[in-house]
């Protein structure tokens, strides 16, 4: 019998695991995918080898890459980008760590208070969240992004829009700024040389500007795992959880098992109340099933997998909201082509952003060629110059929106990847019940019936569509202001990777799965701690910081409710995840 079993070692699960390990609980962390304990042996810097969603080392699938990836049904032109493995989808994320906008929390009374997703606010105030933001920001740690040439290009454009620069953690209104990133600032030779021989740790510390965020961060070369620049959870929270005994008084290291696919959460009636009792998981390699009991079970499998696990476990869904209300920031993508170098794609994937509550935001994104080409062809508007698929909007970009394909794409890319700058349009999108996860009618895989992710992207709410159009225009203006000679709008088909709110926390029993403490309404001792528990799309900010802050809060609630402990976030100081005690212990453990 464990104290706590956490399902999934992605963005959210390791936060709960680390916090409760620090309190001395016996925590088992189960991860469906691989460990990647030796990135220098397992990873490269190549896009197909890393990012091919079928065969890459970053994919949703078992460790054994000769086996197919896990198939998920998407009944529309779309792409759900989730990874398995320790670190989950943070393994290839960009580490952008803005806070959710205050307007998405209960009690917000700004002048624009009616402009947000007002029916789906967080069931507590922004002020209550702030200490949890601060705790995660100090743990990661989150830092103001260093600037490279592509950020300089972005700022040149942002400066033409008549907006102030944000110099606070909290976003108070439309503004632009360097990202607050979960990426260590460059130190020593990092960022100052391209000579491999001079870029070994500790001569170089923090971000070396390699440009490989998407292929996984294992730099500077020779650094301990917890000192790699990008703070994906495999480099931050997981190392802390595995070494809790050395940095927390009374801490107890977690047990981490990988290639362990949880197929069932068990629950039984206790004193008339349905209560979680443990889980069953399946070893990807041997196929063997294991069962373990726990006092508390935490679902952290992500927005797509949690609903699947819920349904496959036969758990009740009285208000029908399990899997519903999935938000994805209804992204769009604009490409600017320049006469001069923009600095693309060197450096951190994205280090500059523009926030525009209550519409959403923008950020620059650097990508290598294959991902750039992919991003230019993912569209709901057909092929530019050929067909518009019923859309193909015109606006302050050049020509109709749509795929840049074939000869046009080749010409654009041949101009030089360093002459491009791409801007991600992040929409503050509404929670809508029909955007959801259900079980697919397609055949089950070895872990049971598979999830189906439905997005009615052509029927989003008027507010969502308005926000997206508004931000797409801003993106075009920004690119022109930066000096782009030509601007392309792709009108992305849903690229679902800022995932939120499919098991949402809410004040109302009518439209939420999780109560304001993070516990599921239908099953006691079962908590949700990852992006799926988020109440809404946060106004547009990238979700992981808010998700981890919420997971920290949920860890406190678990500890206080079921283990008789006191909350700690307001009374203790966090230990930073780069702490040398963690590094030394990792070395002893051969990690």
């Amino acid at each position, binding site marked *: 019998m464990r104290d706590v079993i956490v399902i999934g070692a992605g963005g959210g699960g390791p936060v709960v695991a680390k916090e409760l390990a620090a309190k001395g609980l016996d925590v088992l962390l189960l991860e469906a995918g691989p460990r990647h304990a030796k990135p220098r042996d397992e990873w490269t810097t*190549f896009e197909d080898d890393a990012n091919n969603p079928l065969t890459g080392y970053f994919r949703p699938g078992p460790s054994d890459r000769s086996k197919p990836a896990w198939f998920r*049904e998407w009944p529309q032109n779309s792409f759900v980008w989730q990874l398995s493995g320790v670190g989950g989808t943070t393994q290839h994320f960009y580490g952008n760590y803005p806070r959710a906008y205050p307007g998405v929390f209960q009690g917000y009374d700004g002048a624009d208070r009616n402009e947000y997703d007002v029916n789906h606010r967080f069931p507590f105030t922004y002020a209550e969240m702030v200490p949890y933001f601060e705790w995660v920001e100090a743990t990661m740690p989150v830092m103001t992004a260093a600037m*490279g040439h592509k950020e300089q290009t972005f700022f040149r454009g942002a400066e033409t829009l008549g907006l102030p620069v944000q110099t606070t953690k909290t976003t108070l209104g439309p503004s632009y700024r360097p990202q607050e990133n979960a990426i260590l600032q460059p130190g020593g030779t990092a960022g100052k040389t391209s000579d491999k021989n001079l870029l070994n740790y500790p001569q170089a510390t923090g971000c070396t500007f390699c440009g490989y965020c998407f292929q996984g961060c294992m730099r500077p070369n020779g650094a301990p795992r917890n000192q790699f620049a990008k703070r994906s959870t495999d480099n931050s929270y997981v190392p802390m959880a595995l070494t809790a005994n050395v940095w927390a008084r009374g801490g107890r290291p977690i047990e981490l098992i990988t290639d362990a696919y949880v197929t069932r959460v068990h629950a039984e009636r206790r004193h008339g109340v349905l209560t979680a009792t443990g889980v069953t998981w399946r070893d990807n390699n041997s196929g063997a099933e294991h069962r373990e009991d726990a006092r508390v079970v935490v679902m952290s499998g992500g927005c797509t997998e949690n609903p699947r696990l819920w349904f496959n476990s036969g758990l009740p869904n009285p208000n029908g909201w399990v899997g519903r209300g999935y938000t994805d920031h209804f992204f769009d993508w604009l490409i600017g082509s320049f006469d001069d170098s923009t600095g693309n794609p060197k450096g951190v994937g994205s280090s500059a952003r523009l926030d525009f509550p209550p519409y959403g935001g923008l950020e620059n994104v650097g990508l290598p060629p294959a991902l750039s080409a992919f991003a230019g062809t993912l569209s709901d508007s057909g092929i530019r110059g050929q067909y518009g698929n019923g859309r193909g909007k015109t606006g302050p970009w050049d020509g109709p929106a749509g795929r840049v394909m074939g000869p046009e794409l080749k010409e654009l890319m041949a101009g030089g990847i360093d002459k491009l700058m791409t801007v991600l349009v992040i929409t503050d999108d509404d929670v809508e019940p029909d955007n959801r996860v259900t079980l697919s009618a397609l055949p089950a895989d070895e872990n049971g019936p598979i999830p189906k992710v439905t997005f009615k992207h052509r029927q989003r709410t008027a507010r969502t569509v308005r926000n997206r159009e508004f931000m797409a225009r801003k993106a075009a203006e920004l690119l022109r202001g930066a000096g782009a000679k030509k601007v392309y709008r792709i009108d992305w088909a849903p690229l679902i990777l800022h995932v939120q709110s499919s098991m949402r926390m809410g004040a109302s029993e009518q439209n939420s799965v999780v109560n304001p403490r993070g516990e599921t309404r239908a099953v006691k001792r079962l908590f949700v701690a990852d992006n799926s528990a988020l109440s809404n799309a946060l106004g547009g900010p990238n979700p992981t910081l808010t998700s981890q802050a919420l997971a920290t809060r949920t860890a406190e609630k678990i500890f206080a409710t079921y283990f008789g402990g006191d909350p700690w976030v307001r009374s203790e100081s966090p230990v930073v995840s780069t702490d040398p005690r963690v590094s030394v212990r990792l070395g002893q453990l051969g990690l």
Partner: protein
Amino acid sequence: MPDADPPAVEPLARRAFPARIGVLGAAVGAGGLLTRSLLNPADAATNQLLPPAVDLIRPVLAELARDTLNGLTVFAMPGPDAYSRTQGTPSPTPGAMESGATDFMINALDHFVPFPDAIAQPVGAALVTGLADSGLADTGLALPGLSVLPVELRTLDRALAAYLQSDETLPLSFPIAGLLNLMATQVNPLAVNGPHLSPFARLTYAEKAAAFELIERTDSDLVALLDVHFPEPLKASVSGLLKFVGGALLEFATFGAYSEYGVFDKETKALRMRPVSWSLTGYQPDGPVEGWDDFIGYYQGRKEVHD
């Protein structure tokens, strides 16, 4: 650009399927892969050295799939090759053919797309034969420029049926190629004949785009056209899946064409040559790096912020 009305999708007579998707042409057309005598039953009966029907048909389908996917990958990234010329958009610098994008697609489709057999199999069967119950030969076919004897058709028919009924998993590249070829002949019926093995590869760039337009706007149209009887719970999934497939083919072919796939050595985890797209775009001129000297400071000199 105004969105012109796309051509309507007409349900096909089942018997026209194999011609349209190119199997007949690839098998016995001018430049076809099968010696016509192989399909002659008199020969087959007497010649012990002839391979069984399934062995005859498998390479035909594989070549047809490859040829079709050549037509797709040059659509994603044209180059100096014959397929790009046929498409009408040749380009002097290396493209998808040189970058190995067709192998990328075949490898992905046939070995790694965990697409459910429950859908691939019936779609594949419909696309590859379209003759399951009716029997091709009896219906008589009028194919422009292709004179096929009834005996040859019957043999081909039987070979296809045997293949589809065998326990072999149908490589996904076959139904995908079938889908593209079917759409190709909707867009341009004359594409059943011409250079290359497959109708899709014979299309111009604009015609290929028109074929994708048909796939992308699929609702019931294409599903009706396929006329496949899926088990009930799956039926609702097919149209959505086809939309997904349409988008994914374009995006994935492009990703493959611009990736290092063709020159990556799995054993050493190193590149054998500079990838086509790296030369094209000037990406990392000296190969992979540990870092860049691109750090130019902090915006407005601010290294941290607080509330």
